């Protein structure tokens, strides 16, 4: 078994799987269960300022979308930050950290946008001996209306300002949690770095309405006939999160800034993907909320086995390994020519590839009377749609050798060449 011990901005944990700041980490009872189940770290659910705690709705807080067999693919929530008194949370944090010194325990914070509020809470958190703080600049619902959460995360100047206060008034490592509800994630990341953040974590949830009650004509979850937008998470958001993590990892200004990857991590494979795109560790919420804390065992065994297979001895060897291969469209090799090929022995003759190609793509698959499906190389643009819709994964994309002639275009497959030098590109012509 590979060693999964992880060190993230100086914080050690037995594995890179942390629970994200969310309902599963709202109190001591849950967090102890999480640590017993094997989670490497926990980001305690967001604390607010001293005083009367926030209140939550007393109707449903979650909405979901499902795949086959009611498998939960996306989860939306309208829960706010912790609704328990500050002192209770702080006391529990201290107690848990004392009993689990080897686990990472980070405290998520969200207080009003003034220096005194941040200064006050940081002192209280330091007393718990927690390993660090995470600044919640991400929550898109409820708190944003009060000038906190994503209301801060959407203004890079605020991010920088608050981060600077935190670093000024605390020696604790500081992670800035970013909202994806923004046009370009690099702006907030750059601001966090400029403010002195030790790391960023992303993504927080995405603004969403998951469904509408078609009898009551109200968004779900519905509270007394009304609904509001909530934060979307779970497997469905992973592609959005992966891109944002990669954007920060490959941005010249933020390259090297540690990233804690969040967004739909459900299996060891998801975690490994985030890490190859630059995440030093990952945070998980929906998978635990869907299946319970035990899912971490599969993540641990899966990542270990993968690392053994790859000959990696430390998770740091995995981190960022795919970043150099993330590029802009214009640099993709236009002379990389592939053709779909259906492995007939494995084909179950469902015809979905045919319907997809015939109805919605390039009419590049033929169907015989006995339901044999064959790719027409002279029509196939290698779009991959047939591969994606095949229920048994029996279609492969085969690369054409250099020097061979693409029957679709009649052109010879040549050396690497991209859009920047393509004759159809007006900019390319201008550059000559």
């Amino acid at each position, binding site marked *: 078994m590979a060693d999964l011990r992880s060190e993230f901005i100086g914080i050690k944990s037995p594995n890179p799987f942390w629970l994200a700041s969310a309902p599963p980490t709202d109190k001591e009872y849950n967090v102890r269960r999480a640590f017993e189940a094997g989670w490497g770290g926990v980001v305690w659910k967001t604390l607010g300022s001293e005083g009367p705690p926030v209140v939550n709705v007393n109707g449903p807080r979650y909405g979901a979308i499902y795949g086959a067999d009611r498998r939960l693919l996306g989860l939306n929530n309208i829960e706010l930050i912790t609704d328990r008194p500050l002192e209770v949370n702080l006391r529990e944090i201290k107690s848990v950290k004392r009993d689990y010194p080897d686990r990472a325990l980070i405290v998520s914070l969200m207080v009003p946008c003034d220096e005194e509020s941040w200064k006050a809470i940081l002192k209280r958190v330091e007393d718990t001996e927690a390993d660090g703080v995470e600044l919640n600049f991400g929550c898109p619902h409820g708190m944003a209306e009060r000038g906190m959460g994503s209301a801060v995360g959407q203004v890079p100047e605020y991010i920088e300002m608050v981060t600077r206060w935190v670093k000024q008034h605390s020696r604790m490592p500081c992670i800035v949690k970013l909202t994806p509800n923004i046009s370009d994630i690099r702006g907030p990341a750059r601001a966090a770095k400029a403010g002195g953040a030790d790391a960023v974590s992303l993504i927080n949830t995405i603004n969403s309405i998951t469904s509408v009650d078609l009898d009551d004509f109200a968004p779900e979850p519905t509270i007394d006939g009304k609904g509001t937008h909530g934060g979307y998470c779970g497997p469905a958001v992973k592609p959005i999160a992966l891109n944002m993590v990669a954007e920060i990892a490959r941005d010249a200004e933020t390259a090297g800034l540690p990233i804690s990857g969040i967004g739909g991590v459900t299996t060891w494979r998801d975690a490994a993907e985030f890490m190859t795109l630059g995440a030093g560790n990952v945070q998980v919420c929906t998978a635990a909320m869907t299946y319970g804390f035990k899912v971490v065992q599969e993540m641990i065994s899966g990542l270990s086995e993968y690392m053994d297979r790859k000959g990696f001895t430390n998770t740091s060897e995995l981190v960022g390994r795919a970043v150099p291969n993330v590029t802009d469209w214009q640099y993709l090799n236009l002379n990389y020519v592939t053709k779909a090929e259906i492995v007939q022995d494995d084909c179950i*003759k*469902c015809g*979905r590839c045919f319907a997809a190609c015939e109805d919605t793509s390039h009419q590049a698959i033929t169907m015989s009377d006995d339901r044999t499906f064959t790719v027409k190389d002279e029509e196939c643009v290698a779009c991959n749609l047939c591969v994606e819709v095949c229920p048994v994964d029996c279609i492969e994309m085969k690369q054409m050798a250099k020097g061979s002639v693409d029957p679709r275009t009649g052109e010879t497959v040549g050396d690497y060449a991209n859009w920047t030098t393509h004759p159809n590109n007006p900019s390319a012509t201008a550059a000559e």
Partner: protein
Amino acid sequence: MSHSQLTEGIVPGRLDPEGYCTNFADVAPPLGVQEARIAADRCYFCHDAPCMEACPTSIDVPLFIRQISTGTPEAAARTILEQNILGGMCARVCPTETLCEGACVRMDSEGEPVEIGALQRFATDTLMAKQDHPFSRASRTGKSVAVVGAGPAGLAAAHRLAMLGHEVTIYDAHAKPGGLNEYGIASYKAPGGFAQAEVAWLMQIGGITTVENWQLGREGDGDLADLLADHDAVFLGMGLSGVNALRLEGENKDGILPATDFIAELRQASDLAELPIGRDVVVIGGGMTAVDAAVQSKLLGALNVSLVYRRSRGEMPASLHEQEHALTHGVTIIENAAPVAIHGNGAVREVEFAYTRTGADGLEMTDQTFRLAADQVFKAIGQTLGDTPAKVEIAGGKIKVDGAGRTTADRVWAGGDCTHAGEDLTVTAVAQGRDAAQDIHHVLMEG
């Protein structure tokens, strides 16, 4: 007087009352909402789906399953019933393992098809439970059609004709409509009076009159000429009323009867505990009727039930699924053996069989024989057409029809088991009845 499975002879009440309830309960209980949702999720929504191709009534299976999966089972039922008005019964009795489910692409990938039959039942049961009839009649055409036989072919034809605006009269020889659905199939396949409930639901279309206890050509009832005088067209769907004989000495001994008679009696029995059954039962034949008779004998408490077929198990008309059903219920299947003599004094005591083999001229008997104890013997070696009107040409013992169901007689159509196109399947009969109705409509409206 109490009997047990060990009691010799043909006696009633071999089981305790609970035994009958358990044995004759729904053989394939309906799917619950959750089961249906999970089963529906397994459908791939294939293009030009093989299951649809395999269905004699061409039900759009992927569409109706998708309709179930999106929470609209009533819409699913309509998709089914548009093609097959007896979709409820077919969901129960179709040999799906050789039809839609046998063609399911999941058979290739994992050997377990989507449960199409069970899903079809889920959809149709949901609709029928609401007593909702989703079809209505077109404006009246003023034409009248006679349908002979209230079995699957006749009912399908009648419903389609009524829907198209014609007036329909169904003439049936039995006291109750339904044909083999009511009198012929195993009781546990459609318990709870489903056959009658389905007919009642079907009749909601309106425009259909039924005449019971009326047999074509019987003195006092009427013949084809009478029907043609009273109606614009006639559809013959009377099925097969005769049974093949063993052609053996002693065939008329007590205890020997057609399997179809036994099944009909069982289906109409108000109390199964009063239905006598032998201790040692021998069923001769290899089709679904043979299996239904053998299994139900066992379920009534017969101690030993043997199903003897003259060819190999692989050649049995009953599907592998049906054979396994029989074996699971304790029926002994003996293959490659044919009856050569019946022994007994007044009543049958033993049947003597010779083993068979395939020779140059087909099946031949060997010298090796064996005897099976039997106090009851059910013959299930095929059924035959009863008397038919002279004007209607017969081919191979069945009514000759063309692709549209037209017979050689003018204004006379036919469908189902009584035709040479029949396959002894409910679903095929429905398709033929429906298609003949469309052709009748076409002809009547052109003329």
